[in-house]
């Protein structure tokens, strides 16, 4: 649905993004992850046709952004980082204006506005002046604006920023519902958001793509090993020996000791669940198994690791 090739954007004094290429399938939710200033917003602005690229091409549904800007914009609903609201208008008046400039036919205008208000859950504030709404409502009016005319592609720049946890949950559910029939690209620097909503993640840092994969695969890629913590009541050295002999285990270390029980960190082969084997070994040896817990690396760790590696490569070179 979206194909980005070799995208580069240079400003007068700095390069915002360089040589970025990726593809988004129809119906997919793609997450852009990166620190502030990494180039997320710039990339989205180029895809939406807000600004032209210095080099490279973007195709949306077969149309090139620079050559056929109107065809591309017709297919995109865009929620910028700051929702573009005319705050002196009512929610209804604003959405009617958006529907008009997006070319919704006159006879559908009321239905379409009612539909997006329903979708974004703002029907109850339709008569209110936008300036008087809370941040959460404003964000949802912005989201409703992006949904007007039901575009097949949605570009959402930090859609959950400024929302409370309940609203964040609602927006995430909405985005998940939209997937399938819509292609969604969203950016965030909140890592759990990507894990919970996105099918694929692009991690960008300093204008370059650092990694592209599913959240799960990214974890495997960076982690290098499955890590499990076990707490066992039994003699430390014997436990270590026995655990080491269990198939799939690569490394065992004692990490803590309390009151006759010991805590061990076990590293196992990648993509192999050794938890039941570990449990069996311990129980069959007659020791007490107090706790067994898989410690997966969070995307947060992965993100920090990837961006740090990038840094080291640069300083090393």
């Amino acid at each position, binding site marked *: 649905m979206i194909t980005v090739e070799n995208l580069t954007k240079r*400003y007068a004094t700095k390069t915002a993004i360089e040589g970025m290429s990726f593809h988004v399938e129809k119906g997919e939710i793609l997450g852009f992850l990166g620190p502030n200033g990494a180039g997320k917003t*710039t990339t989205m*602005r180029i895809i*939406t*046709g*807000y*600004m*032209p690229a210095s080099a490279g091409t973007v195709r949306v549904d077969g149309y090139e952004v620079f050559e056929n800007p*109107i065809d591309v*914009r*017709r297919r*995109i609903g*865009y929620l*910028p980082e*700051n*929702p*573009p*609201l*005319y*705050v*002196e*208008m009512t929610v209804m*008046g604003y959405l009617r*204006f*958006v529907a*008009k*400039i*997006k*070319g919704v036919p006159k006879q559908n205008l009321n239905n379409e506005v009612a539909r997006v208000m329903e979708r974004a859950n703002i029907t109850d504030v339709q008569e209110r002046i936008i300036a008087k709404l809370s941040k959460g409502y404003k964000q949802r009016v912005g989201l409703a*604006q992006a949904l007007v005319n039901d575009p097949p592609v949605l570009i959402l720049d930090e859609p959950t920023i400024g929302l409370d946890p309940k609203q964040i949950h609602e927006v995430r559910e909405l985005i998940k519902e939209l997937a399938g029939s819509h292609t969604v690209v969203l950016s965030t620097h909140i890592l759990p958001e990507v894990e919970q909503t996105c099918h694929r993640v692009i991690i960008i840092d300093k204008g370059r793509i650092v990694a592209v994969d599913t959240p799960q695969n990214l974890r495997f890629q960076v982690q290098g090993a499955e890590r499990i913590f076990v707490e066992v009541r039994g003699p430390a050295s014997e436990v270590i020996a026995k655990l080491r002999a269990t198939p799939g285990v690569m490394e065992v270390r004692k990490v803590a000791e309390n009151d006759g029980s010991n805590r061990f960190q076990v590293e196992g082969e990648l993509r192999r669940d050794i938890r039941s084997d570990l449990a069996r070994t311990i129980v069959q040896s007659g020791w007490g198994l107090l706790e067994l817990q898989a410690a997966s690396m969070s995307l947060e760790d992965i993100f920090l690791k990837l961006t740090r590696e990038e840094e080291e490569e640069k300083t090393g070179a």
Partner: protein
Amino acid sequence: MRNVLAIIERELRAYFSSPIAYVVLTIFVFLSGIFFRTILSQVMQMGLVSQMQAQQLGPRPMDMPGMISRGFLSTMSVILLFMIPMITMGLFSEEKRRGTIELLLTAPLTDLQVILGKFLAAGSFFVILLLTTCVPMSVLYLYGSPASGPILTAYLGLLLYGLSIIAIGLFISTLTENQIIAAVISFGAIMVLWLVDVMAGSAESTTKEVLTYLSILSHLDDFTKGVLATSHIIFYLSLTLVALFLTYRSVDSLRWRG
């Protein structure tokens, strides 16, 4: 076209949901009333004097309604010069400041549609402003019988003149995010175009001609005298077009700079 209408409608609503429209209208109506009254009494006095002279020297015809309307409408052109930057200052600068420019520039609209919508919205508000002067002017029709020709051409001149200033203000509002700065710069630019013939006073003949030609008010004189000269119409239309073209280029560069 429907897109352009939607933008015009939104801009006009924005004028009237902020104090700007009411302040500009009030001040303008107030000032035009005061000036009309002043000009009226001046002309009346001149009329009395010439009546007394007529008794001694024989009757001399005097077009009093014409003098009043000419004096009044050319004074209006100066007041409008101060009012129009208030109408145009927010057109693009507010969109930039609030980030709504991102909505307009990513909607399926061409830049030209956005610019035309805004230009015509400010133009419509200007026409409303101009129409308020019909109230004092109607006094002339109630108590006298002025020649309508020069009045109509004067209004046409004021319209063309106003639209060209609006186009200049529109261009300047694309340059900044601050509407006060947009207003001050527009005001300065218009003042330069107004006073450029004063500077011409001591210049060489060719330079003088050029500078006098550029003066934005000098082209209005013939309109108020009831003369429709193509050259003046072309002057205002070309000034408008140049300013709109600059606006177009400026919006384009807005995209490049981000």
